[in-house]
C-alpha cells in the first residue's frame, strides 16, 4: 500500500521533467533571494552591533546565507537532473545519485523551516543582548578618548536621532550615568565638587540628557537640563514636557525594528519552504516513476510513481530495522548457503553467542 500513488504515461513523465526543470530554476532564484535577505539582515545587525552585548543574533543571518547558497547549489543540480530525466537513457546516469539527492533535499528543506522558525524565537535573546549592550554603551558614552570606545558617543547619538528614542527604557536612564567626561568638568568649581561628593561612586550625575534625545517635533526649543524640576523653566507644562524629548526607550525601538525585519523575512522564508516542498514532492514522483520504468523494462510504458513505497508505519519500521542491523554486520546469521551439520550447527550457535558477548 503506497503513499500517494499516481500513474504516469511517457508523455506525462516528460512534462513532469520539464516542469520540474523550470521549478528548479525558479528555486535557484528564490535561493538567491534567501541569500540576499541573509546579507541584508547581517548588514543591519552589524550597523548597530556596538550597542549589542553579544553577537549571538548573527546566527540567524549566517544560517540564511548558508541555506541560500545551498538552495542555489542543490536546485541547480536538481534542474540538471530533471532535464536529463525526461529521457530513460540519460536517467541511468543519475540513477544512483537520485535517492541521496532526494534525502539531501528533504533535510535541506527541513533546514529552511528551522531558519524560518528561528527568526521568531530570537526575540528574547535579542532583547537581553540589547538591554545589556545599551547599558554598557551609556556607561561608556563619555569615554571618547579611550581606544576602542571613541565612537560610542557618535553611535549612540546617531541611534537616538535615527530611531527617535532616548536612553535604555526611557530618558531617566541618563540621570544615572555620568555622561560628561571629567576632562570637561572644572574640578576647581565648588558646584562641580559638591555634585561629585553627592553620591557614593563619585560620579557627576545630573538630571539632564544629551542633545540627541531632543525631539524636533516640540514647539519650543529643546530643554535638556534640570528635567526633574519643571518649575525651573518658564511655562514648562505637561504638554511641553511630553513633546520635549523622545519618550521611547532605545531598547524597545531597536527591538521593534529588528522584530519587524525578521518577521517579514520569516514569512518570505516560509513561502520559499512551501515552494521547495512542492519541488521535492515532484522530484520524488519523477524519481520513483523513472525507476519503475526501468524495472518494467519498456521505456514507452506507463509506470507508477509514489511518495513512499509502503505505508508510513511500514517504512518507518523498515528504516528502524536497517539502522538496528547496521551494527550487526559482523554477526554470522543463519546463512542458508553455508552447509552446517545439525549437531555442529547447535555448537556453532553457542559459540556465536559467546562471540556476541565478547563483542558486547
Amino acid at each position, binding site marked *: 500500500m503506497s503513499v500517494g500513488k499516481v500513474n504516469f504515461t511517457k508523455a506525462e513523465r516528460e512534462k513532469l521533467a520539464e516542469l520540474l526543470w523550470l521549478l528548479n530554476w525558479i528555486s535557484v532564484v528564490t535561493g538567491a533571494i534567501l541569500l540576499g535577505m541573509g546579507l541584508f539582515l547581517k548588514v543591519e545587525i552589524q550597523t548597530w552591533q556596538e550597542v549589542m552585548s553579544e553577537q549571538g543574533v548573527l546566527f540567524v543571518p549566517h544560517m540564511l546565507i548558508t541555506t541560500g547558497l545551498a538552495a542555489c547549489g542543490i536546485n541547480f543540480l536538481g534542474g540538471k537532473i530533471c532535464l536529463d530525466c525526461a529521457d530513460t537513457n540519460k536517467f541511468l546516469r543519475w540513477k544512483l545519485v537520485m535517492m541521496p539527492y532526494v534525502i539531501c533535499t528533504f533535510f535541506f528543506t527541513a533546514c529552511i523551516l528551522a531558519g524560518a522558525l528561528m527568526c521568531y524565537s530570537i526575540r528574547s535573546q535579542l532583547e537581553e543582548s540589547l538591554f545589556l549592550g545599551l547599558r554598557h554603551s551609556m556607561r561608556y558614552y563619555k569615554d*571618547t*578618548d579611550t581606544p576602542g570606545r*571613541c565612537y560610542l*558617543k*557618535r553611535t549612540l*547619538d*546617531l541611534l537616538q*536621532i535615527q530611531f527617535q528614542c532616548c536612553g535604555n527604557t526611557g530618558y531617566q536612564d541618563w540621570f544615572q550615568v555620568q*555622561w*560628561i*567626561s571629567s*576632562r*570637561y*568638568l*572644572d574640578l576647581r568649581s565648588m558646584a562641580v565638587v559638591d555634585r561629585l561628593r553627592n553620591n557614593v561612586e563619585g560620579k557627576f550625575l545630573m538630571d539632564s540628557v*544629551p*542633545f*540627541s534625545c*531632543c525631539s*524636533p*517635533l516640540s*514647539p*519650543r*526649543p*529643546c530643554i*535638556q537640563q534640570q528635567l526633574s524640576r519643571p518649575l525651573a*523653566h*518658564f*511655562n514648562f507644562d505637561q504638554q511641553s514636557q511630553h513633546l520635549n524629548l523622545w519618550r521611547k526607550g532605545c531598547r524597545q525601538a531597536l527591538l521593534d525594528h529588528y522584530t519587524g525585519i525578521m518577521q517579514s523575512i520569516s514569512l518570505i522564508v516560509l513561502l520559499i519552504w512551501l515552494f521547495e516542498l512542492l519541488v521535492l514532492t515532484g522530484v520524488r514522483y519523477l524519481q520513483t516513476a523513472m525507476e519503475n520504468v526501468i524495472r518494467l523494462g519498456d521505456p514507452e510504458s506507463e509506470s507508477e510513481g509514489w511518495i513512499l513505497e509502503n505505508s508510513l508505519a511500514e517504512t518507518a519500521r523498515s528504516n528502524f530495522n536497517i539502522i538496528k542491523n547496521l551494527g550487526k554486520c559482523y554477526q554470522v546469521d543463519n546463512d542458508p548457503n553455508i552447509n552446517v551439520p545439525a549437531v555442529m550447527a547447535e555448537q556453532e550457535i553457542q559459540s556465536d553467542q559467546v562471540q556476541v558477548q565478547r563483542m558486547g
Partner: protein
Amino acid sequence: MPFMVVKFDLQKRVRLAQGLWMLYWTSVLAGIVLFSLGIFFKIELRKRSEIMNNSESHLVPNLLILLSLVACGINAFGGKMCHDSLDPQKFTKMKPALKPFFALSCGLVALLLLQVLLCVLMQFSVYLTLAEGLQFALRFYKDTDTPGRCYMKRTLDMTQIEFRCCGNNNFRDWFELQWISNRYLDMSNDLVKDRVLSNVEGKYLMDSVPFSCCNPGSPRPCIQHHLTNNTAHYDYDHRTEELNIWTRGCREAVFSYYSSIMTSIGAIVIGVIILETADMAGLKYLSTALETMADPENPECESEGWLLEKGVKETLGDMIGKLKTLGRANQVEEGGDAPEATT
C-alpha cells in the same frame, strides 16, 4: 552622392533590423528611467519646499517627465516599425509614416538638448530660491503657533540634522534673530528684559544655536549656548573648536545635494540623446536599404543604405531653400491673384 553609404545583403538587413529593435526597446527602458528620475526629483523638491518658501520652480522635473513619456512612445513605435520592416507588405504600408517619424525624433532630440541646458542653468535659480527661503525659514523658526508656519521648526531641525548644516551661511545666522518664542520667555525676569531692550528691534538675541546644529561626532557633549564666550565653558576656545556644531551653512549643503541630482540627470539625458541619435541613424540605414532594393520581390538581393541622400552641404542647402519657399508661398499666390481680381 549619398552620405556614408553602406552595402547590405539580406543577412545584414535582418541583423540590422533585429539589432535596431533591441536598441529601440533599450531606449524605451531609458525613457522609463528618465520618468522615474523626474518623479524622484519632483518629490525631493516638494519635500523641502518649505525651506524654499514654496516658490521653487518645477520646470526641470515637469519637462523631464513629459519628455520621457514622449520618448517612450516614440521608441516603442520605432521598435514596432523595425519589427514590421522586414515584411515587404507591412513596409510599404509604413513608408509614408517614416518622414514624420524622423521629424518627431529630431524634435525630441532638440527638446532633450534643451533639457540638458535647463539642468545646468536652473541650478542658479535653485540657489537663489534656497538663499531666500532659508532666510524666511530661520526667521519663522519660533512661530510654531502661527498657522501656516507651525512645522517650520520641525522642517528646519530635520534639515539641519539630515544635511549636517547650521544656519543659512553658517551658524552665526542664528545669533542675528530671535529663535525662541516670547511664549517661553519669562518677561518678568530682569536678565530677559535687559537682553530684549539691548537691541533696536526689541528682539531676544543670544549667541546660541538650536540643538539640531550639534555634531554627534564631537568628543564632548554639545555646547549650544554662550558659543562666543570662552569663559562660560571649561577648556573651550570658540575659535579653534571645529567639531562642536556643524560649520557648514544649510544653503551650501542643500544646494550641493540638488546640484548633484541635476548634474546626474543632465548626464543621463546626454546618454539618452546619444541613444536616440543612434536609433535614428539605424532606422535611416534600414529604411534606405529596404527602399533601394533592385528587385522588391527577391529578398536576397543586395541594396545600399545611407544617412543622407545628398552630401551634408547640399542637404543643408535644400533645407534652407525649403524654409525660404515656405515663407514665399503667399507672395506668389498674391501676384497670381492680383491680375485675376482686376479682370
